[in-house]
C-alpha cells in the first residue's frame, strides 16, 4: 500500500494563517474597516475552509481577488459570519475540478451574509443554505460557464428550510434546474437579480410569504415559477407577490434532467403558478415568451399526501404588460395549442378545478387585465388529461380578488 502524504502537514500551517487574520470591526462598513483578505498563496481551498471553521460569530472573512480552483465543497456553520469577496467578477471560486460534496458552498448557520464573489461550475448546486435564518445573498454570481447543459448543477442559489431569506443583486446562469430556488421557507425577498439561461429563472416552491421584484428573468426555459409539491415536509405554499420584473425571451430549450419537476416546463413560459395559493402577479413586463407569458396549472402527477391541494387558488393577475408571445408553444402545450390553431394567448389556465374523485372547487382566479390581454382556459377539468375532454374557452373565470399580502419585511434588511 502507498499512502500519499503530500496533503498532510499543510492543514496545521493553514490553520495558523487563519488564526492570524484580524477580527472584524464592530461595524460592517467601509472597506477600509475590513480585515485583511485571506492569503491567496498555497492551497486556497484549505485556507478558506479552515477560516470558515475557525470563524467566530460576528466575524468577516475577506476573500482576495483572483480565481481559485477548489476540489471540495466548502461549508459554514458559524452564526453571524460575513463572507465577502472583492467583487462578483473579481473573486471567483471555481469548482471545475470538484471531487466531492453536493454543492460548492453550504451554509447551515444563521445571520450569515454572502457577498461580492462568484461560484463557478460546481458539480451539484452552487450555494446552498439549509435551516439558515436571516441569510443574505448579495452581489453574487453563480454560473456554469459552458452554458445550458444537462450535466450542470441543479440550483445556483438554493436557500431551503429557512426563515427570512434575502437574495439581491445576484446573477445566475445555466443552472439545470432553477437559478434562484427558494424552497420550504418563510418570509422571502428575491430582488434586483438577473437570471438567464437556466431552466427555471427563479422558483419559489413550498414556501410562504415571498416578494419577487425588480428582477430580470430572460432566456431561461421558464422565467419565474411558483410551485407547491406533495410529499415534502413543508407543503401548502402560499402568499407570493411577483411584481416589477422583466420576464422576456424565456425560450431556451428545456435541459433539465428528466425526473425533475421543471423538466416538464414548456420552453417559452414567463410565469408558471402551479398548485399554490394566494399568488399576485402584477406590474411585470412580459415579452417574447414563445409558449405563454403566464401559465396557471395544477400539479398533474399522482400523489398520496393527504395534506396536499394540487390546484392553484386565489390568484390575482393585474396591470402587467404583455408583449408578443405565445407564437410557438412548446412541450406539453404544443399539441394543445395545435388544436387551437397553433398559438396561445398571453394567459393560459389548464382549467383543472378538481382531482381524484373530488368535486369541482372554486379556485378563484382573478384575471384583472385589460381586454387586450388574451386569456384561455383549456378546460381540462382534471388529471390525467383526456384530450377529448379539452373544452377551451376565452372566458375569464368569475372571481373575487383576494387581498394582497403586505410587503415582506426582513429583520436583516439593514445589515
Amino acid at each position: 500500500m502507498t499512502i500519499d502524504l503530500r496533503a498532510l502537514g499543510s492543514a496545521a500551517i493553514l490553520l495558523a494563517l487563519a488564526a492570524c487574520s484580524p477580527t472584524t470591526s464592530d461595524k460592517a462598513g467601509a472597506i477600509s474597516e475590513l480585515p485583511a483578505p485571506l492569503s491567496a498563496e498555497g492551497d486556497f481551498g484549505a485556507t478558506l475552509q479552515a477560516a470558515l471553521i475557525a470563524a467566530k460569530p460576528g466575524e468577516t472573512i475577506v476573500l482576495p481577488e483572483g480565481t481559485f480552483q477548489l476540489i471540495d465543497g466548502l461549508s459554514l456553520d458559524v452564526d453571524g459570519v460575513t463572507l465577502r469577496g472583492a467583487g462578483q467578477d473579481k473573486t471567483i471560486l471555481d469548482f471545475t475540478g470538484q471531487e466531492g460534496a453536493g454543492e460548492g458552498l453550504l451554509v447551515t448557520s444563521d445571520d450569515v451574509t454572502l457577498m461580492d464573489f462568484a461560484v463557478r461550475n460546481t458539480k451539484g448546486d452552487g450555494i446552498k443554505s439549509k435551516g439558515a435564518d436571516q441569510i443574505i445573498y448579495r452581489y453574487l454570481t453563480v454560473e456554469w460557464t459552458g452554458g445550458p447543459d444537462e450535466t450542470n448543477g441543479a440550483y445556483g442559489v438554493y436557500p431551503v428550510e429557512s426563515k427570512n431569506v434575502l437574495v439581491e443583486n445576484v446573477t445566475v446562469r445555466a443552472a439545470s434546474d432553477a437559478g434562484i430556488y427558494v424552497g420550504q421557507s418563510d418570509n422571502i425577498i428575491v430582488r434586483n437579480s438577473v437570471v438567464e439561461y437556466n431552466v427555471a429563472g427563479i422558483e419559489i416552491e413550498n414556501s410562504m410569504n415571498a416578494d419577487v421584484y425588480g428582477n430580470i428573468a430572460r432566456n431561461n426555459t421558464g422565467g419565474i415559477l411558483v410551485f407547491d409539491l406533495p410529499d415534502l415536509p413543508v407543503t401548502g405554499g402560499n402568499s407570493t407577490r411577483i411584481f416589477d420584473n422583466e420576464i422576456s425571451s424565456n425560450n431556451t430549450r428545456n435541459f433539465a434532467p428528466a425526473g425533475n419537476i421543471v423538466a416538464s416546463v414548456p420552453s417559452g413560459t414567463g410565469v408558471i403558478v402551479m398548485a399554490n395559493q394566494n399568488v399576485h402577479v402584477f406590474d411585470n413586463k412580459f415579452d417574447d415568451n414563445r409558449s405563454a407569458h403566464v401559465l396557471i396549472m395544477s400539479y398533474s402527477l399522482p400523489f398520496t399526501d393527504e395534506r396536499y391541494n394540487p390546484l392553484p387558488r386565489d390568484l390575482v393577475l393585474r396591470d402587467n404588460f404583455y408583449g408578443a408571445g405565445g407564437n410557438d408553444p412548446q412541450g406539453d402545450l404544443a399539441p394543445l395549442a395545435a388544436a387551437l390553431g397553433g398559438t396561445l394567448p398571453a394567459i393560459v389556465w389548464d382549467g383543472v378545478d378538481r382531482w381524484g374523485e373530488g368535486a369541482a372547487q372554486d379556485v378563484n382566479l382573478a384575471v384583472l387585465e385589460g381586454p387586450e390581454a388574451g386569456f384561455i382556459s383549456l378546460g381540462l377539468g382534471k388529471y390525467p388529461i383526456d384530450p377529448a375532454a379539452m373544452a377551451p374557452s376565452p372566458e375569464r373565470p368569475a372571481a373575487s380578488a383576494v387581498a394582497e399580502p403586505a410587503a415582506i419585511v426582513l429583520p436583516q434588511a439593514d445589515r
Partner: protein
Amino acid sequence: MRRLVLLASLFLLAACAPAGKGARGPDMGVILADDPAPSLSDYGLFADMATGAPAPGVLPYDLINPLFTDHAAKHRFVFVPGGQTAAYRETEVFDFPVGSVLVKTFAFAPDMRAPEDGQWRVETRLLIHKAGGWAAYPYVWNAAQTEAVYSPAGQRIGIETISPDGAPLQLRYAMPNQNQCKTCHQTGKDIAPIGPKARHLAHEGQLARWEAAGILSGLPEGVAGEPYAFDPSAPLDLRARAWLDVNCAHCHKADGSASNSGLWLSSTETGPARIGILKHPVAAGRGSGGLKQVIVPGDPDASILLYRMASTEPGVAMPELGRSVTDPDSLALIREWIAAMETE
C-alpha cells in the same frame, strides 16, 4: 466474521501494551474543555498510541451493519465517565451522560481481504458529549503512526490497496472537515451520534457486555438487533432496510441534513412514499439520471436510489460524503430488494 477477528486482535494488543503516554486513562479536563486538544493522545483514551490499544475504561464495540466508507476498516470505542451510564432507549441513540466519548478510527491495510494485517491508521474521529452538547473533532494520524493531530480543515489522500473482492483499489480518500462531521451527525441544529442505537448494537451479547462494564443502564430483556445486511438467511426486506438505515438515514430523516428531500430512510419509517416508493424527486437535479422515481418496484434500473448509489460523480453520488468508490455488495443488495418488490 472479519469484524470479530479485528476486535480480538485489538484485545490482544491491549493486553500486552506497554504503559506510556495516555496510560493514566481518560482525562476529563481535556475531554470537557471548550476547545479540542491539539493531539489525540492528550485525551488519554489510548493506553498506547502506537498500537491503538484503548485505555482502561474505554470499551471496543462494533455495529451490526457499519456505514460503507470506501472499504475502510473501522475501530470503535466508547467511554462513559466513571460511575455513570448511558440510558437505554429503544429506537434513538442511547442517552449518554456528559463526558462520554465515542471514538472511531479509520484504517487501511495493504490488502483489505486481510484488513488486520499491516494496518495504516488514517484518521480518528471523536464525538464528545460536552456540557453544551456533542462536539465532533477529526484527528489525522502522522506518518510514524504514533500520534494523530487535530485537523479540522479536512483533506484528501491517495490510497492504493486491494479491495475485499481482490481487485486493485485506488482511492482519493476524503477525511471530512469538521463541518462535514455535522452534515451526517445532525439532529435538528445539534450534533448527535448515529451508531449507538439498540438495533445497531444488539448482537453477540454486546449490550450485555456494555451493561456488565457498567456503562449502560435500563437494558430490557431480549433486545434484538437488525440482521446483518449481507446474511442471506435473513429476510431481504429487513436486510435492505437495515442497510439504508445505516448508510442513508443519518441525513435522510425528519431532522437530518436531507430533511427537505422528504425521503426518509430510517428502518422505522413505514410510509411507502416516505421511503421513496414511486416518489418523485424534488431537488435531485442531474442526480435523477433522467429517471422519474426514487424506487420503482420491480425495476431497479428505473430507480433513482440505485442510480445514485452506483455513481461516484459529485452531485450525483449518494451518500454525498464518505464514498468515492462504489460498493458491489451494497448495490447487489438494493438491486435485489427493489427487483423483489411487488408491482401493482
